[in-house]
């Protein structure tokens, strides 16, 4: 069993970045995730020699991430919604150049400068592209502080396995709340680097070029086909989700991250009142676990999707179930957080006709 600590989500994530053997962090402060760079600035370099660099902007941080990832190092940036929007061009380049790395979005309410309070309104941006071109990130959505730690490790492992950038899609609540967390042991930083990394041309080998530029359309299409093949493999092999109480469920509550946590509590309240409610919680939202919804749909009377946005993941849920079951949505926006009682009340109203 690893070390147990009571930690704030952002600090737990930062601790995990050190322990996972990160070589470099490049970031720009933004609420509600500035604790990450503060924690790393204090802790990281002394402990592992990890480079921690405060960039002049998110535009710069993501391009630093590109350069560092191109050397085959394990590197990360963290930000929050407006900063992640600024990074989209760079993320597209990283995807195009097939560089493994980790991007963390501790979401806050938008659009625009929005609010610093928690939100989940960047789901579309994270899962459907965000930047230009046909690409995907591997997107992991933590629902507690433990997963803020676990998904750092998993994110790097998946990203490096496929050479596809990974994103931890958290939110202000995950970043700011304190919980008990079990930390994995320190993993040493690597001393050997992949063949494709630009570490200086070996005398006896071809030079390495990190680029997303393939100006001949015939070549560019081949690059795209290779990327798409990887995405199909990721969809087939890396989908992760959790279910609860599906065995006897007549209804399913669903959501990701913060939304799933609220859904979980609402499910408990529903069970106390005798309603047979289960839960599906995607841990990866790209790849999205369409199959579990598809399989569950014919056995239930309806799904209630809970998100802190206007209804984004619910589009994927509807895509999964088609007309096999009814799908309803409950959301709060702009930094407001749904309470489980209101979720339950909404469920009783739309599905049971209770006013």
């Amino acid at each position: 069993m690893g070390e147990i600590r009571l930690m704030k989500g952002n600090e737990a994530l930062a601790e995990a970045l050190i322990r996972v053997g990160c070589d470099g962090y490049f970031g720009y402060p933004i609420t509600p995730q500035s604790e990450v760079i503060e924690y790393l600035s204090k802790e990281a370099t002394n402990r592992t020699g990890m480079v921690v660099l405060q960039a002049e902007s998110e535009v710069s941080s993501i391009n630093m991430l590109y350069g560092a990832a191109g050397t085959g190092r394990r590197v990360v940036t963290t930000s929050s919604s407006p900063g992640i929007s600024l990074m989209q061009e760079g993320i597209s380049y990283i995807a195009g150049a097939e560089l493994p790395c980790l991007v963390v979005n501790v979401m806050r309410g938008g659009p625009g400068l929005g609010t610093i309070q928690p939100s989940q309104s960047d789901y579309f941006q994270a899962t459907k592209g965000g930047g230009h071109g046909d690409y995907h990130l591997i997107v992991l959505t933590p629902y507690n502080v433990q997963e803020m730690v676990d998904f750092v490790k998993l994110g790097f492992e998946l990203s490096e396995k496929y050479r596809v950038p990974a994103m931890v899609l958290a939110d202000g609540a995950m970043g700011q709340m304190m919980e008990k967390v079990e930390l994995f042991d320190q993993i040493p930083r690597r001393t050997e680097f992949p063949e494709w990394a630009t570490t200086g041309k070996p005398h006896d080998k071809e030079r390495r070029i990190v680029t997303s530029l393939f100006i001949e359309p015939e070549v560019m299409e081949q690059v795209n086909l290779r990327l798409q093949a990887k995405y199909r493999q990721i969809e087939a092999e890396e989908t992760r989700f959790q279910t609860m109480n599906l065995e006897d469920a007549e209804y399913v509550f669903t959501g990701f991250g913060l939304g799933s946590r609220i859904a979980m509590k609402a499910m408990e309240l529903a069970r106390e009142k005798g309603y047979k409610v289960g839960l599906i919680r995607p841990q990866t939202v790209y790849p999205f676990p369409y199959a579990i919804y598809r399989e569950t749909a014919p056995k239930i009377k309806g799904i209630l999707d809970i998100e802190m946005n206007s209804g984004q993941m619910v589009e994927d849920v509807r895509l999964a179930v088609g007309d096999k079951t009814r799908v309803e949505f409950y959301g709060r926006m702009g930094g407001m957080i749904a309470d489980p009682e209101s979720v339950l009340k909404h469920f009783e109203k739309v599905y049971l006709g209770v006013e």
Partner: protein
Amino acid sequence: MSNLVEVPVNPEVVQDQFVVYKKPKTLTDKPLHYCPGCAHGVVHKLLMEVVDEMDIQDKIIGVAPVGCSVFAYDYMNIDMQEAAHGRACAVGTAIKRMMPDKFVFTYQGDGDLAAIGIAETIHAANRGENMLVVFINNAVYGMTSGQMAPTTLPDMVTTTTPFGRDVKTMGYPLRMSELLAQLPATYYITRQSVHNAVSVRKAKKALRQALEYQKEGKGFCMVEFVGNCPSNWRMTPLESQKFVEEKMTQYYVVGDVKVPGGK
């Protein structure tokens, strides 16, 4: 009818003692896509000559920009990364921070370095990143075919300044070398040109000097080249060299702008 006569080359005649010139081995055999008379080809060659002479082909990583030299990695036979437009200094920063024992340079044009990427340039310089920036300033956007650059001279005609650059509404040409020289963390800033044989020789010395400083860990160095762009200046190569000598170097004075221990 061609008046060219094909002369067969006898390899036995081509002996080392007769070779007075050859391309550096770190330049690939790929034909350059640059227009005839363009400074890029000369600067590519000088840079790779220095890499050869210092024997650092296996220790140097280059960063290509977006602009005419976007394909620099096709010609330089070293490990390279292609950066997003303007971000070469951010990319170079990270490469160097990950591998402080390696040599890193960025190769950037005026739009890349002084317009869209000026923040990355200034902040990398201000942090004293121990790398070399090779800056080609030809006062025009070449790849997009001749629009105004931040370094376009006053009254100079481009496709977006058809009546000449009006400094009242379009601002003044940026002297990047002088601007960066003010920062305490910059170590060696020099402006060179390659428009005649003498300047080519001096330019090569400047590149060598900058990489030697990097080897010693001295910090941020930039070699600016007052370049030319015959195609978009609507000039013959020779006319463009004359324009460099008579006009460009009047505004962009050639010589060291900041040297260690000096001003």
